């Protein structure tokens, strides 16, 4: 009997977590150093809320669809 594959939603969660973590970390570093990327509306700190949102969503999916969870 073959093993069941990991859920697609687990992969989605993993991808969102990794990307969200990277972008959120960059946003925090921008905030701490005060060196903002030269883009329009950079004072809105999009990396923090966009990356943070992806990170939270990714962690939720990871928890819900982690391997071994029925």
């Amino acid at each position: 009997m073959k093993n069941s594959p990991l859920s697609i939603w687990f992969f989605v969660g993993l991808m969102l977590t990794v990307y969200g973590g990277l972008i959120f970390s960059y946003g925090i570093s921008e905030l701490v150093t005060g060196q903002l990327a030269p883009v329009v509306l950079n004072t809105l700190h999009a990396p923090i809320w966009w990356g943070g949102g992806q990170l939270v969503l990714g962690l939720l999916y990871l928890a819900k669809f982690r391997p071994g969870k029925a």
Partner: protein
Amino acid sequence: MFGLVPTSAAAGCLHSIPATLAFSTAPLAHLSTLDLAVITIYFGMVIWIGYHLKGQSNTSEEFFMAGREMTAWIAGLSFVSANLGSLELMGWAGSAYQYGILAAHWYWVGAIPAMLFLGMVMMPFYYVCKTHSVPGYLKLRYGQGSSVVAGFSFAFMTVLMSGVNMFAMAEVMKIVLGWDLNFSIIVSSLAVAAYVALGGLRSAIYNEVLQFILIWGGALLVPIMGLIEAGGWTGFKAKLAHNIQTGLTANGDYTHLWRSMGHFQDNPMGIHWTGIVFGLGFAISFGYWTTDFLVVQRVLAANSLRSARLAPVIGSFFKMAVPLIVILPGLLGLVALQNPDGSLMHLVGENVVAAHPGMGLHSYNEVLPLMMVRYLGPGLLGLGITALIAGFMSGMAGNVSAFSAVSIYDIYQPLFKRNASDKHLVLAGRVATIGGVIISMGAAYTVMHAQGIMDYVQALFSFFIAPLLGVVLMGMFWKRATKEGGFWGLLLGTLTSVGLWAWVKADPSALKYVAISPYAKDMAENMYRALWSVSTSILVCLVVSLLTKAKPLAELEGLVYGATKLPVEEPVPFYKNEWFWTAIAIVCFLALNIYFW
């Protein structure tokens, strides 16, 4: 694949892009280390998924049909994702900049009715007869002749279009990022070949779902930031009106869908509402969404009839939302994009860019990457670029997996190896996948050295879709349709399409006859040509069928309306019922069209 110019790239997307994506010479974006890390992680993940799913693709049913185990959500997202190519994203964003919200017709009337029709009316027949492909349905309904013809034409055109798309994408990456053409073609091809050959359709579907999420995660921030900068939708309209009033932007109605459709000369696309409704909304859209195996294959992989019917319905909601990340950024570009000196940037046609090299001009097709560069810093830009790459790869994987299934089930097995073992079919499928990628690469390099053939290749693909629709509809809903009627309907419908295309190519003034107006433009030609083609195939099928002997009713069980007993589905709460969600989708579709009337 149909629309702006003869057909689409990406061998799958309904929506066309300008045939030649011409760009200015300097790369638009410079990626940071973080951006490159985001892109590299993406490639690592898609290969990992393919490797992980290798053990799940041991039988032909698993390799070609994903074991028919996909839920409605997965099949639905994959169904839309296979169509969402990156060239489509960029091409239609450019069209929105040029023509305004008229471009949204290709996402709404040009997709939603057909998707719902597939789910609620046609899918039971595809699903109940357990066909592996659309040519497979033709074989069951009309016999092997039309199936083999449809299989060959589909397989040939699929890899050819995949190659055209591959080249166009490499060209985009060269211009946007300065990447070498060979690098883009080889890396993306190897990645797609690896994960589809390893995991089959299941791997392609998994990656398409992942890519779909990625496209939204990478691209949705652009319109959000654009709307914030413009002061919301109302602020955008006020700025646009001011720009038009002061002559900064060309005069036109950029924010209404139907008001300028009363006459061909009233809108910049040169289209009449009859062309949009009957040509795009019926002939082209139904042809693509209900008979193109590239997308139908995703739904056939569903785990039950209910899931198979729900999948296109779920897909329709996302399809309705795609203009948020495609059309809206294009529109916002009209008021947001600025030159380095702060003046309003004016994008121009490809021919103007090509005629003025070194002047720093940008073409319409660059609006999406320009908007990304405007708002997205390190990491986010990498995510946006990865979204474009993901869009390309999902389109290519869709082509390759569909090519593999059709070439084995509808060509190799019936013609060369009728008694092939299941293990042999899986091996042949993996070889066909790799072969499909190699042929696609060959096509990409051919196009690189003779770009003029791109127009012809794209037009070629469009010749088969509309007549196929006529024949499938007649076969599915008319018991009297015969083998001879199907064959001649398909043949004469295709010849009608080819003939009209050649007529206009040889004598451009013939457009006034094909598109029934001297004011019609190129896009109107595609719509009316498809309409005449599908009408011909239906008429010919009707007449020939009446003159020939029909199949006994018993042989039509599971294939034709009125001769098929559909399985009774278990009752479910209303919020899980496909008809309920179809009704909601229809209401949303009508509301969008009324709001933007």
